[in-house]
């Protein structure tokens, strides 16, 4: 379990990182390394250059501005989990961070790295998708913004260009209720089903519902039929949405559970989300 040979670079600015990425089509960004380094050790990935972002200033930090959380791409999961700002503005996001792996991994792994990696069972892509967030990226040709809906293209696939670096992740949190949950066998395992649901809630009625599922499906995905079936209804009136969710997604099978099982537990996860929404409206 030793990696193959690679060149290593640790630039001190984003432009230099982009240039290094542009020069070597088999280069990879190292942004914490908690997924990439195991892949190297298993020789499942063999990039020729690793461009380490740890020395680039300005890529970490958490700000709450204009109704959104702006998370520097190199902000660690642990940093988000423990951030007073996140805990105050969107405690569900801090709680979502705590679902990721174990403290050792959360201390090094970063939100930008996780989003760019786009693991089918990871928490951040589901959260980003459910919040309708976006990422800010810099490439050789300049800066651009990519919405979550446009970013995720499939398992381990994004619309990032090879020379592009995510610099920050934006999560619009104001006015939205957020619920994140998952079924995992042991704490720190990849979820067998991961769900993030966000919505506005007015007088018990849910509007602007966005629902993202990971882990149970081949890649992180929204469930538009389910969202539509819940739109304008109360959480107690969610039977149609439950039925829609069971029908609209394609569930994966592996040694940890069949597709039917994953459908079943994704349904119970959604029912938990609905119960939580009901309890919130009860408190309001």
């Amino acid at each position, binding site marked *: 379990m*030793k990696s193959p040979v690679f060149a290593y670079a640790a630039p001190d600015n984003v432009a230099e990182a982009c240039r290094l990425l542009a020069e070597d089509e088999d280069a990879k960004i190292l942004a914490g390394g908690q997924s990439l380094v195991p892949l190297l050790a298993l020789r499942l990935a063999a990039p020729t250059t690793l461009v380490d972002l740890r020395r680039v200033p300005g890529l970490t930090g958490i700000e709450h501005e204009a109704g959104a959380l702006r998370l520097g791409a190199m902000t660690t999961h642990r940093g988000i989990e423990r951030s007073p700002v996140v805990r105050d503005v969107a405690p569900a996001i801090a709680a979502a961070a705590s679902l990721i792996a174990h403290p050792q991994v959360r201390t090094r792994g970063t939100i930008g790295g996780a989003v760019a990696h786009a693991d089918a069972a990871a928490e951040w892509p589901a959260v980003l998708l459910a919040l309708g967030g976006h990422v800010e990226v810099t490439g050789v040709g300049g800066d651009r913004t990519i919405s979550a809906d446009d970013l995720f293209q499939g398992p381990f696939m994004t619309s990032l260009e090879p020379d592009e670096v995510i610099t920050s992740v934006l999560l619009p949190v104001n006015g939205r209720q957020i619920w994140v949950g998952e079924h995992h*066998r042991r704490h720190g395992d990849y979820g067998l089903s991961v769900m993030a649901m966000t919505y506005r809630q007015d007088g018990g009625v849910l509007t602007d519902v966005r629902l993202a599922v990971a882990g149970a499906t081949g890649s992180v995905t929204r469930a538009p039929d389910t969202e539509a079936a819940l739109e304008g209804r109360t959480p107690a009136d969610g039977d149609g949405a439950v039925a829609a969710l069971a029908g609209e997604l394609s569930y994966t099978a592996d040694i940890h559970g069949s597709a039917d099982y994953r459908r079943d537990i994704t349904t*119970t996860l959604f029912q938990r989300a609905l119960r939580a929404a009901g309890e919130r409206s009860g408190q309001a």
Partner: protein
Amino acid sequence: MSFAHSESPSIAARSIGARVPRGDDPRLLTGRGQYLADIVLPGELHACFVRSSAAHARIAAVEVEDARALDGVVAVWTGEDAAKFCEGIVGELEVEGCVATTMPLLARDVVRYVGEPVAVVVAESRYVAEDGCDLVDVDYEPLEPVLDPRSALRGGPAANEELPDNVALRGGRVLGDVEAAFAGAARVVEATFHSGRLSAGPMETRGVIADYDWTSRRLRLWTCSQMPHYVKYCLTAYLGFPENECEVLTPDTGGGFGQKAHVFPEEMLLPLLARELDRPVKWVEDRRENLMTATHAHEQFVDIAYAFDADAKATAVRIRATGDGGAYHQPPWSMGVEPWCTAMVTPTGVYDIPVADLTYEAAATNKTPIGAYRGVGYMAGTLVRECLMDDAARAFDLSPFEIRRRSVVREFPWTNPQGIVYDEGSWLQTIDELESMVDYPAFRQRQAALRAEGRFIGLGLSVFVESSGESTAMGKAHDLGGVYHDTATVKMEPNGSVTVTIGLTTQGQGHRTTMAQVVSDALGVSLEAITVRAAESTTYGWGSGTVGSRGAVIAGGAVLRASHTIRTKLVALAANMLEADPSDIDLVDGAAVVRGVPGSSISIIDLATAVYFDQSSWPQDFDPTLEATLAYDPARPIFSNGGHAIIVELDPDNGFVTVEKVFSVEDCGTVINPDIVEGQIRGGVVQGIGAALLERLVYDEAGQLVTTTLLDYHMPSMDFSPPFEIHHLETPSSHTPGGIKGMGESGLIAAPAAVLNAVNDALSHTGTVLHDIPVTPEQVLRALRS
């Protein structure tokens, strides 16, 4: 026949029985241990293995020239190169019906399981060695893989041509009139169980360093083995290294659990490489290799039936245990030990069942060889016996405690139908104790109340008897061969401090602490004055291996016998100096005292100093050697016993099983150190929870191992470690030092049955009864929805 080394002197327990903190902990828990990977020899090379990617294939060609040409690669060997020195290592179990196999050091012509070593690359670093492995091109011509053990035994292609009918082991015994017993039964309860394929999963993987000096012909081999003397024997027997110039060293070892109680091809190859390349060679196994190629464990299919009379007492048992053995016998335990033990040793357990029909068989399959793992043979055997007992309890509408009381042995000594004699035990008391610990009526009330709320809890019971202190007598009692004994050396220095060396290696069990407690009581010296060295090198002592719950009994006996020799000298000297009769001298609290004469005493330090430096104080004919090496091997087989009651809750949202609480009763005779005994129980039970709920090595239909990382092979983590309540019963052995019995395997032996029983109890309203482990969340969810 009787032998001196089977007799142990008596001992007065003072330190024995105390919760002495483990002396190793400050060093190990602060990261100061020296494990195999921490050892760096000057000029060392690194080995990495090319392992078969096919379950069963003919090797058409192995192309190694690119690897040999890589900068930094020193050597590449294939099966042909290794075979010049050794044809392979032979494995078999010395019982009726076992057919031996020879495992090549590197596969030649045919590969028989995924992960089998095909070539080895030796290079200046592990990185380069792995680069070299990537350049070795093996051309495999696929052969049909043999994957299902039960159909393999009915015919078809052979997994290993040495076993053309795939029968690696087959035998059994019929004891009493089985047909009549089943024909006359009031009720027959039967089931087929499957216990899944496991990895022992030690935290530290295997590893070997070999260093050969051609000027002296001296070989030093570091390996984290549980059986270093056996490894040394193999180096001599298979490879011809001279025994007197061959040393096996065992550094700190991060768990073994039986996996490291074998000899492996890697341990035989590295000495040859070191000798031929004239440089030290190191191999540290990675986790993927460990999951793929270190012995697998426990997998069996078991058909079992009990006949009961109208009073719900068991009258007969019929069992067929079929092992899914893998491609070879891994010496010395082989693929036979699992099904053989399940069928021949465990079916009657603590129950008085006079009639038995016992059949064992092991099938060769194209999978990793099965070997020993904590509770070998006993875990699956206890699973089927104790789970069938709970099935019977439901059939008779009796409590799980009552069904067991109807059949439990109450009179000792007791001889089971196989002829094994149990001298003593607290078998009935264990059942009664667990029943009161769980407060059974209150549990049933709580269960009913929660069920009404849509919550599902269940209680599972499992009781066991465990053979312990693996010995020559134990082997004979079970119709197995083998001579076992260990030595210990006890040496007292001029200042009264004591150094103890034992023949057992230690993998984290706290032997250094428990053995110091034995010496402290034998010699009357404080624990601080005692240093215990586990078998760090085969240069010292003799040991038959840290296996079979031997440590406390065997090392304890040897240490006590050696201590007693020193004690006798100290007593004689003290009697002379104090002008008292030796029979009136006691050694206690650092001094020799004259019983009944207050104030008449001399410190052990002064005695030790006098032995070395003051001849005038010696009695007539005194021999001043304050060092003794003695062996121990108990005269009779020693059995401990106990049980677990486990409460689980099922999550109706996802089928997950959570263990709420474990109640354990353990009777290992005299307890040397309750903290260490309880640690063994906790660790073993959590491994059992893993076996019952999480751990499963999975092969696909092509014979590829799917679970090659700990992301897929789920071991229990701290959130699977439930609260425990542990009670000790003490029924001392009348044959061992101080009445000690071994107990290192009891948790894993009995916990899986308790967990499965608890799950089935929680599902009792559904009509579903599960008989396979691990229980999957999907099975539970499906049962709850049915």
